């Protein structure tokens, strides 16, 4: 099973992930000691071996994107929360420097008092208990950690230029996050069309603690699916094993084909194929694939060959031709390249 690695943001720690760690086996990453985003990514990849499901909050999201750039083959899925991929902006350095000076000059409690309110849901009064807990978290850090992380952010790579990750992705942000607004997540979703975007109501930049139950549930459901898919079998290329999603998607299609294992079913199919197909709740895509005898498409839509093969009992097609069609090869090329280079005896 892949490890779920939770990467906190600026001057944050496991507190941000409290609700997630209560629901799922997971590990909280430490990003307090490294001097740059690429160093954080390298270090986490070295410290946490094997396949990883990443969840990064804010700066942690940038670390996750950099990990996926450095080691795409190790990342089973990536959840990005309250984050962005844009490079350093005009005027950003001066504002960050003021915060660095504040922490050094007046301490972490002062920093928390100045910094945290702007991070919260902009349309509600912050919950005093939550503010106290977040302030305590900030105070567990030091001005040196804060400075190191801000300088890492200022020198961050342009994630937009290298975000080519195509594995499962979940984007979560707060509807009232003014620091990393919804639009930044929509930008990421445009680059990664497989990403699912969830906008959490009544939450700002600290959505994982402002709406801990909602965020943890979203993340846990997603991470479980990613883990199952990853442990399974879809890692073997071009090999669509008949797992729960495929069995669900293909049930009606396979049931239609199963009907051809009786003489009555075969006669009905031969007499009026469309009327026979009408008996089953095929999707329009599945219906079109059957009518076109598009074997590759039938398998893509959840057909299992042991069932859909029964179509070839009514409308004869050799199994090797069905194989060639799925492989995208001519029959001759299929026989030669897949089955030919063998010896008997």
């Amino acid at each position: 099973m892949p490890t779920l690695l939770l990467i906190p943001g600026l001057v944050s720690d496991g507190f941000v992930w409290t609700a997630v760690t209560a629901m799922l086996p997971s590990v909280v990453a430490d990003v307090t000691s490294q001097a740059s985003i690429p160093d954080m990514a390298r270090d986490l990849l070295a410290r946490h071996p094997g396949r990883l499901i990443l969840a990064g909050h804010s700066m942690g999201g940038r670390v996750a994107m950099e990990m996926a750039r450095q080691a795409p083959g190790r990342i089973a899925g990536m959840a990005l929360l309250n984050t962005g991929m844009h490079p350093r902006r005009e005027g950003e350095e001066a504002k960050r420097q003021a915060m660095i000076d504040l922490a050094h000059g007046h301490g972490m409690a002062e920093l928390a008092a100045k910094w945290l309110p702007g991070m919260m849901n902009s349309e509600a009064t912050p919950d005093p208990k939550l503010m106290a807990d977040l302030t305590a978290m900030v105070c567990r850090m030091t001005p040196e950690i804060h400075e190191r992380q801000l300088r890492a952010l200022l020198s961050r790579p342009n994630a937009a230029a290298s975000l080519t990750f195509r594995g499962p992705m979940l984007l979560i942000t707060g509807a009232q996050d003014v620091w990393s607004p919804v639009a930044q997540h929509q930008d990421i979703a445009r680059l990664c069309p497989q990403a699912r975007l969830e906008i959490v109501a009544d939450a700002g930049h600290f959505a994982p603690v402002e709406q801990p139950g909602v965020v943890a549930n979203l993340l846990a459901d997603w991470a479980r699916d990613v883990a199952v898919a990853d442990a399974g079998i879809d890692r073997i290329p071009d090999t669509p094993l008949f797992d729960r999603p495929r069995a669900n998607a293909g049930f009606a299609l396979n049931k239609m084909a199963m009907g051809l294992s009786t003489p009555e079913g075969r006669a009905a199919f031969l007499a009026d194929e469309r009327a026979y197909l009408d008996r089953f709740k095929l999707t329009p895509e599945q219906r079109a694939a059957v009518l076109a005898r598009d074997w590759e498409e039938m398998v893509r839509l959840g057909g299992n060959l042991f069932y859909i093969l029964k179509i070839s009992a009514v409308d004869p097609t050799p199994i090797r031709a069905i194989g060639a069609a799925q492989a995208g090869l001519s029959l001759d090329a299929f026989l030669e390249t897949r089955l030919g280079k063998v010896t008997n005896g």
Partner: protein
Amino acid sequence: MAKLIGGLGTSHVPSIAAALDKGLRDSDEWKPFFDGYVPAQDWVAAQKPDIAVVVFNDHGNAFFLDRVPTLALGVAESYAPIDEGWGPRPVPAFEGATDFAWHLADQMVSGHFDPLICRELDVDHGMQVPMELVFGRPAAWPVKVVPILVNTIQYPIPTPQRMWDLGCVLRAAIESWPTDERVIVLGTGGLSHQLQGARAGYINPAEDRKWIADIGPNPQRYRDMSREDYVEVFGSEGAELIMWLVMRGCMNAQVNTLHRHYFAPASMTGAGMVLLENA
């Protein structure tokens, strides 16, 4: 007590049945495949088994996806060839070893394997083809049968480790059956093949030959492999080979490999057999 006379692993490719039905036994394409089984057929005939336990998977014929037993056990009086889409094949029905099958049901459940118990069951090429490869095309089968069906189609399929353990329970059941009947166990399926996806047509003759050579003397590697490993090495449908582990698991640690044979491709499949007796 009953005696385990041997274990035989074999492919059950449906094209083998089609070749027999079309009278292609001695064609250039198929003769080398069928001839390779003759020494094993002779050995089995000389040993005169009374019961064949046949471990195979149903290929979407007896069971639909509305209910998928991970493990099923036949206790029927008789098993007819099923209609797989082309009409039932002209092979004789198989007489069930009903009493032994119920004993096996008891022993399996006592040993923490809980099969679906099937009183009426038709069987597909997964059982027909191995029986034809071992016993030819007699007017009536010379043995009674006990089918054990394993789900190898819908995931999750059982683990290789579990299949081996089932073999151990099967061994104990055979040796606690108070008759002098002689039992042969057939583990069927494989070898390497893949029917689905863009990797369709994948076969791996080198690994197939290794399997045939090693399943007798060095089975540990195959016990340790994961289901994913099977799919990776032998193809998505090649993972059927886990069913040979039931056969191998019911044999002694030390076995003699009496006969082995390999042929590729049979249709889209690496095909072959191995015959083992306890050392």
